[in-house]
């Protein structure tokens, strides 16, 4: 792959065909946003002639619908994120942007305090009730994701695994590590059932996605450099890095390279897999464990945008169906939350408007469970419908018991 895959170079392939506009969920929800074509590729070029700020840039949610709509391979949303970073070189970050970008830092602080998770969960409940979040610029309507009492990384040594010559490293991502470690545990069970020993690398940082979307690009670059050095190290040992979080895997596999361009990001990306992508590869090689209890559930699958972008098909659907599940796609587009976008007070309404069709679909309740690979998609569906979705790996883990 050459340098031309770096997002900034792809802007010149834009023909202004407007496909991205026709597929942008934010444009459909709000008329203040000038849209991916004008903000990304077109306005990106203006910077060469004069200093200019496109204020409506802050409406982009980085859901990547525009990238998928583009017939010419323009990394539209990444161009937007690069420009957002430019904007913040000369503008102060707002308090809530700083908070939403640094979830990992916050979680680490809390873990240092005895019962920190419990207290901060109580605190967040109070914060919501008292309107503190709203005053800070956060969406007061939402619950902030509650911390698990013990993070996955802390709990990990207590998980019993058979040692095996076949190993993978689990990239937990922040949400699974701090908020939903049971998803990580389910993943470990599934990998164990397939004869793999799961390792954890405590030196991994947050993938950087929350930083990129809030314009902390320099910090994201530090995360990228650190993570990629670790991934390359594992690559040398022949041990793949696998993650059940689709936004993390997209960042590690694709966005680092688009944002920063250097070859090392692509070299590292070759060693990174989405969880079900990896399982499907095992299946193709005839190494997949099919000794399982049949799954008889009817599942409604909300496919995250960041999974669609990866062009790996829908391995979770295929595998669960082969195990007996009936999987129906929700097929209602973006859920609207797009990482921390829907947590911003000024974007909450947009985010709920984008998700409305999905909520309507989920509320039909013609299924046993809703599944989705993305943590924030699951939060959004829960918030919009009161129905709590699970990660598809949890369904698979249960079938292996």
């Amino acid at each position, binding site marked *: 792959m050459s340098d031309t895959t770096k997002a900034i170079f792809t802007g010149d392939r834009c023909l202004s065909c407007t496909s991205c506009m*026709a597929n942008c969920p934010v444009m459909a929800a709000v008329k203040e946003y000038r849209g991916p074509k004008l903000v990304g590729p077109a306005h990106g070029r203006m910077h060469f002639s004069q200093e200019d700020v496109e204020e409506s840039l802050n409406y982009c949610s980085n859901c990547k619908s525009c990238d998928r709509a583009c017939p010419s391979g323009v990394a539209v949303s990444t161009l937007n994120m690069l420009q957002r970073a430019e904007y913040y070189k000369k503008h102060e970050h707002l308090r809530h942007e700083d908070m939403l970008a640094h979830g990992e830092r916050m979680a680490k602080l809390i873990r240092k305090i005895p019962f920190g998770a419990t207290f901060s969960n109580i605190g967040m409940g109070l914060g919501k009730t008292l309107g503190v979040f709203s005053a800070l610029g956060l969406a007061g309507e939402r619950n902030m994701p509650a911390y698990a009492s013990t993070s996955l990384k802390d709990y990990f040594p207590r998980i019993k695994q058979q040692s095996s010559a076949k190993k993978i490293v689990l990239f937990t991502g922040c949400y699974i590590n701090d908020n939903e470690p049971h998803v990580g545990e389910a993943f470990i069970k599934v990998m164990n059932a397939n004869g793999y020993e799961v390792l954890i690398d405590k030196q991994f940082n947050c993938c950087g996605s929350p930083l990129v979307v809030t314009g902390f690009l320099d910090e994201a670059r530090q995360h990228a450099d650190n993570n990629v050095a670790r991934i390359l190290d594992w690559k040398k040992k022949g041990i793949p890095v696998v993650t059940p979080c689709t936004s993390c895997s997209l960042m590690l596999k694709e966005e680092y390279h688009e944002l920063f361009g250097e070859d090392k990001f692509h070299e590292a990306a*070759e060693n990174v897999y989405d969880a079900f992508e990896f399982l499907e590869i095992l299946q193709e090689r005839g190494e997949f464990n099919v000794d399982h209890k049949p799954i008889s559930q009817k599942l409604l699958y909300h496919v995250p945008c960041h999974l669609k*972008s990866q062009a790996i098909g829908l391995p979770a659907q295929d595998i669960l169906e082969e195990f007996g599940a009936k999987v129906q796609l929700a097929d209602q587009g973006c859920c609207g939350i797009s990482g921390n976008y829907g947590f911003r007070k000024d974007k909450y309404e947009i985010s709920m408007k984008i998700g409305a069709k999905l909520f309507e679909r989920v509320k039909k309740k013609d299924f046993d469970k809703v599944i989705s690979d993305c943590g924030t998609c699951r939060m959004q569906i829960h918030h919009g419908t009161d129905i709590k979705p699970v990660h598809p790996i949890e369904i698979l883990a249960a079938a292996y018991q």
Partner: protein
Amino acid sequence: MKTADVIVIGGGLAGFMAAAVAANHGQKVTLLTYGSGSLPLMSGAIDVLGNTETPDTAIKNLPAHHPYKKIGLKNIDSATKFFCDLTSQANLPYVGRLSAQIPIVTAVGTLKHSCLVPESMDASNLVGKKKIFVASIKGLKDFYAEMLVDNLKSHFHDSNFEVAKIDLKLLGGRDITCMDAAQLLTDNEQPLANELKALNASEDDAIILPPILGIMGSFSRSVVKTQLRAEIIETTCLPPSPPGIRLQRAFIRYLQKSDVKVFENSKVVRGVVEDKKVTGVVVENAVREKIFRGKKIILATGGFYSGGIQMREFDNPVEPIFDIPVFFPTGAENWSNQQLFSDKPQGFSMTGIFTNENLNPVNEDGKILFENLHVVGANLGGCDKIFERSAGGIAIASAYKAATI
């Protein structure tokens, strides 16, 4: 991963149609698309053949190498019926038949004749209207009612024209395109209905609007129309085009209901070939490749404009996935006609793949290259689809045939 009965490569009109027809025939279909396809950019009308009042008879007189001759009139007819059924199921009724052309009003007020047109654009009944109102929507980009009136007058001498200034409170925010207006009016039709009612147009009158009547089928149009006595007609517009988006959604809904697996962002780079059979296609993502296996493959990746045919070196056009030979006029002097708006076709537009009657690609000697690969839509060579205005018809008819073989 299971082997699909049919893999369709391409998500434009031909690809969607092929997937829909194949699914309707009980096949398990996978559709791979890179980019959202041409539908949001198209007018909504399906041209079967221009420069004739009766496409069906004109098709009979086409030369033997023309794609329509390989497809056959019976399939073209079945394709139009399938298309109209599909759209009417999606509450997006189309009108038209192969033996006639229907006028539609363009965004600049000329008349364009097409074979299958959305009911909302059918301008047949403009003849004899006493008064024709043309809506000028405040803040709407790229729609100039006065210019439209000036041009349309020459077609309807006996009608009175009036520009109706309408404020739908669209201002505030970005420049509003027809797509934006259509999205804003979806489920919020009353402000427009009220403005149009205030015109007091009678059943002898008509109101011409840019295509802003919603993006979901003809739902918004029905809401407005039931409150009016006059006919309302939509024009074409610049992309993004609501009539094209409505058609795209109609297809997507149909594919979803038929359990067609649609994978976005999936760039097919080559085929998996055994002898003369394609057993699968290889999708290349950011870091690795994935094979999708299928029993039958339909190639609908488009022509030059969509990258389905590429020409990095002059004289050497290529089909990048299967490396199928591409035919095009030899001799640089035959490539282009410098008179862009003349009455002659463009040589380079004839570029494309030649096939047998089953739409299997053939080489120069007429030998079949792949038995289970069928080529449809703008990938097909041998005619200038833009000049003869046959792109839409060839897309749906070749797709129908390929899917039913």
